[in-house]
């Protein structure tokens, strides 16, 4: 990412006045190497999700570039961008809202291949089975529907869907915040295993400092669209410098 900015015009406050502008991101730079994980923490409105949308090329930056494997995503022609999408996939927060309840798991998981027109039917089916196996689901689960699964299993399905195109980067927006504590641990463990086995990179967006510390090599602390502090999670959370980071760390509930 180089000099990434995104601003949104707001509704006029007065009839003939200028439109106020909300700067959601102001000049963001970072690099993410293969097999590494970057965490982004900050509260609602700090620009975390805008960042995810820009990296996923779901939104275009006002200024700056997003480069993945040497290609500037926002300058690619549409067909090339579609083809490039196989390299980056997303896992969403809500495993209940992000899976179509009327489709079978196999169809859900194979959908990225279908959308990219990458593989014939039979291969799609094989790849779906392979992705399900990678996330620890049974082959028999392919013909079930999302409502037959628990929250943690649904998040596994969502991860399988992201894995099916064999991506290099997975953008995960609060992947475990909707899950119970013991299920969180299982899904985090799965994400770690997958990273070790497949050499994935993660861009993990979360407001949970402990989750980020668990999974990431580097953390960006965002506040009002800028990075106020960055560093290795252990060092950052034990010796926060910026007042906002300190406030974040202090707000984490302690057990005793």
């Amino acid at each position, binding site marked *: 990412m180089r000099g990434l900015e995104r601003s949104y015009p707001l509704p006029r406050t007065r009839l003939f006045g200028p439109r106020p502008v909300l700067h959601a991101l102001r000049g963001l730079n970072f690099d993410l190497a293969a097999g590494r994980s970057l965490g982004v923490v900050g*509260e*609602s409105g700090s620009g975390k999700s805008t960042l995810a949308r820009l990296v996923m090329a779901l939104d275009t930056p006002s200024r700056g570039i997003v480069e993945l494997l040497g290609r500037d995503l926002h300058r690619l022609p549409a067909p090339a961008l579609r083809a490039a999408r196989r390299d980056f996939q997303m896992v969403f927060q809500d495993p209940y809202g992000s899976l179509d309840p009327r489709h079978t798991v196999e169809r859900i998981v194979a959908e990225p291949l279908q959308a990219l027109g990458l593989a014939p039917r039979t291969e799609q089916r094989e790849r779906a089975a392979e992705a399900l196996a990678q996330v620890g689901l049974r082959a028999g689960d392919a013909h079930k529907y999302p409502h037959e699964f*628990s*929250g*943690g*299993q649904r998040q596994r399905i969502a991860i399988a869907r992201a894995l099916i195109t064999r991506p290099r980067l997975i953008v995960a927006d609060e992947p475990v915040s909707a899950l*119970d*504590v*013991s*299920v*969180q*641990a*299982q899904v*985090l*463990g799965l994400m*770690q295993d997958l990273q070790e086995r497949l050499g994935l990179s993660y861009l993990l967006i979360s*407001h*949970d*400092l*402990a*989750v980020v*510390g*668990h*999974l*990431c*090599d580097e953390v960006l602390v965002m506040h009002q669209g800028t990075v106020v502090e960055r560093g290795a*999670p*252990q060092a950052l*959370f*034990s010796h926060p410098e910026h007042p906002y980071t300190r*406030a*974040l*760390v*202090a*707000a*984490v*509930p*302690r*057990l*005793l």
Partner: protein
Amino acid sequence: MLHVDNLRITLPTRRGRAEAVRGLDFALARGETLGLIGESGCGKSLTALALMGLLPEGAQASGSIRWGGQELLGQPDAQLCRLRGNRIAMVFQEPMTALNPVHAIGRQVAEPLRLHQGLTARQARAEAVALLERVGIAQAEQRFDAYPHQFSGGQRQRITIAMALACGPDLLIADEPTTALDVTLQRQILDLISALVAERGMALILVSHDLGVIAQTVQRTLVMYGGTVVESGPTRTVFGAQAHPYTRGLFAARPRLGAARGTHLPTIAGTVPELADLPAGCPFAGRCALTIDACRTALPPTVALGPGHTARCIRLDGHAA
């Protein structure tokens, strides 16, 4: 003030009725704070709803919930309506769904005051403005006629707290009040609830799946699993001793700040069984590493471990040493 004895709640499922709460006992006096902790499906929210008389359709409750000597279970709705929102109030997880989007927030805060205390519109408005100011809504007077969508998530939760407090309830039930909020907001809302509880001498029942939230807010804790209380006692004692294997599992699975990166969190084997599949004996049997045959035959009795500290497990000695 509140006595719950042998509370059982059954829910209709496709495979017949299943017990979602299996014999819950606790008592709460004025000014006391109690936490219910556990994962989805452990019965903590159902318990909270039963206290409010708001169980979902088809649910059947048995046992006893006494409020100042008066039995609440089986009371006609009209009777409960006099208590609900008046003596017992509740704060829900999702402020956006708890607030009515087509009514101004001031009117929603004033509603219980007019309904229960028979205040005039003007008195209720003045009181509601005072309440909104107390929970930290700036310029409450000007924002009285604003609608829920014009507020942020944290502000909306403050508004629902103001609604719950309107009649000066004796018991406040907060069901995951901060789960939808950021850590910094969570801190503020919990501080607000704690301050109000202390200031008004209310009792508080806090339902949460977050151990940290419970640790910082309540005096006593019930750890629930599969509809039973597996461990209960003063929060510090329970969190310090972690006598029940499930309590230990919960603690171990929690990501901690400052833990080394790349270490795998210990997980609890298996998944929470469906209600209809709950084992006859200890609900945790099978997922627990200490399971022996006796665990599966009968629900373990409650074992007293110390002052007010109990656990339901027959393998306590297996670990205690």
